[in-house]
């Protein structure tokens, strides 16, 4: 149900949308042009998973821009010391993609999120731009120090993945690519055993980066020297990292325990 902002009334989830205009661009440039020129920017549509959830929650759709007619923004490739992932790549595609193996553990992580049916359709970009705390790609990308590339009619903008939450209005921008720098020895371990309470991504190779996500909180990123104790790593957890399902004490103690295991798994390779 969607309590409207400030409204004392609650509206039932919308199942059936009023008619909307549909844009079916075939190139990224065309898509970006439409996003820039329409008076009210169209809502972007790819895998449908999140759009339908937000429609359900009451988001209005003046017009829809389907990205599924674009011929690019899929797949993944290693170039210039980065793994570049197309925003429209599906989880299923990435979980078996040979280039994704450049980061050990990443394909496995992407192949574990959601479920088989969703992974066929849902895109990695959609999972990020949805800006939902319950979604998991932002946790992985935080740990991997990823950058997000947006295109808009005013040009290209790069954003650290961790800044997606505070980046403001992105309605006229199109996420085109996710870039992950391939630092020496980079590998990922993603622990989902405690979902839905918390999940945790740990990336080794150089600076250790640990991202913790919960149902209701934006992921916390904890980074530092890999020689630090796991407890030290979690001493950096924000003071108010509580939600209705768990306390900061639980997250820090449990996160440290998980990290110890993740370090062992990463060391084993």
């Amino acid at each position, binding site marked *: 149900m969607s309590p409207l902002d400030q409204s004392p009334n609650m509206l039932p989830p919308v199942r059936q949308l009023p008619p909307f205009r*549909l844009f079916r661009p075939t190139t990224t440039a065309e898509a970006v042009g439409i996003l820039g020129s329409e008076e009210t920017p169209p809502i972007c549509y790819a895998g*449908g998973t999140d759009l339908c959830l937000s429609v359900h929650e009451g988001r209005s759709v003046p017009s829809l821009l*389907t990205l599924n007619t674009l011929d690019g923004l899929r797949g993944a490739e290693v170039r210039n010391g980065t793994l570049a992932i197309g925003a429209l790549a599906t989880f299923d595609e990435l979980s078996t993609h040979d280039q994704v193996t450049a980061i050990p553990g990443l394909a496995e992580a992407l192949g574990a999120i959601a479920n088989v049916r969703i992974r066929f359709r849902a895109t990695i970009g959609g999972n990020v731009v949805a800006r939902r705390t319950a979604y998991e790609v932002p946790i992985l990308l935080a740990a991997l120090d990823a950058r997000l590339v947006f295109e808009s009619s005013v040009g290209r903008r790069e954003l650290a993945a961790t800044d997606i939450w505070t980046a403001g209005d992105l309605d006229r921008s199109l996420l085109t690519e996710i870039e992950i720098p391939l630092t020496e020895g980079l590998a990922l371990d993603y622990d989902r055993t405690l979902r839905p309470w918390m999940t945790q991504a740990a990336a080794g190779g150089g600076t250790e980066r640990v991202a913790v996500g919960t149902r209701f909180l934006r992921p916390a990123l904890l980074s530092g020297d890999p020689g630090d104790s796991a407890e030290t790593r979690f001493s950096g957890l924000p003071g108010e990292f509580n939600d209705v399902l768990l306390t900061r004490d639980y997250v820090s103690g449990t996160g440290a325990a998980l990290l110890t295991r993740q370090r062992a798994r990463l060391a084993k390779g």
Partner: protein
Amino acid sequence: MSDTVSITCTVNGEPVAADVPASTTLADFIREACGLTGTKIACGHAVCGACTIHLDGVPVASCSAYAFEADGSEIRTVEGLEDADGELDPVQAAFADLSAFQCGYCTSGMIMLARALLDRDPNPSGETIRKWLSSNICRCTGYEMIVEAVARAAEAANPGTMR
């Protein structure tokens, strides 16, 4: 740009041409325009999978897809599984024989999910079956009998090769 879209597709092998509002979900297209109410709408946002159909062979939650995406595609629903003589698909037969359903509201979606699995992997391990079935929700059965039915359907299609 348009607010009405023309769709030409096949539904269970039959050609269908229709003009529908662009905002029509695939589930409403199937249930209302095509009159195939075997596809159920439950949670409404792709979580439960009661609305699972095949779009070009891929299992899709039709409540969270739009009809315009089906243009030029093949749609398959639970009504399209049995053959012309009314002989059940092995998945349907196994669900019926092993009582792998109760209220039936998830059943069409579960069967379509299982069919998609067996189309890709005719001989899945128990673990693979559980992993796939974990896409959809059944509140009645506790899943065990559904897992058994999918294994039975695979076995029926490939006798003697079960892992």
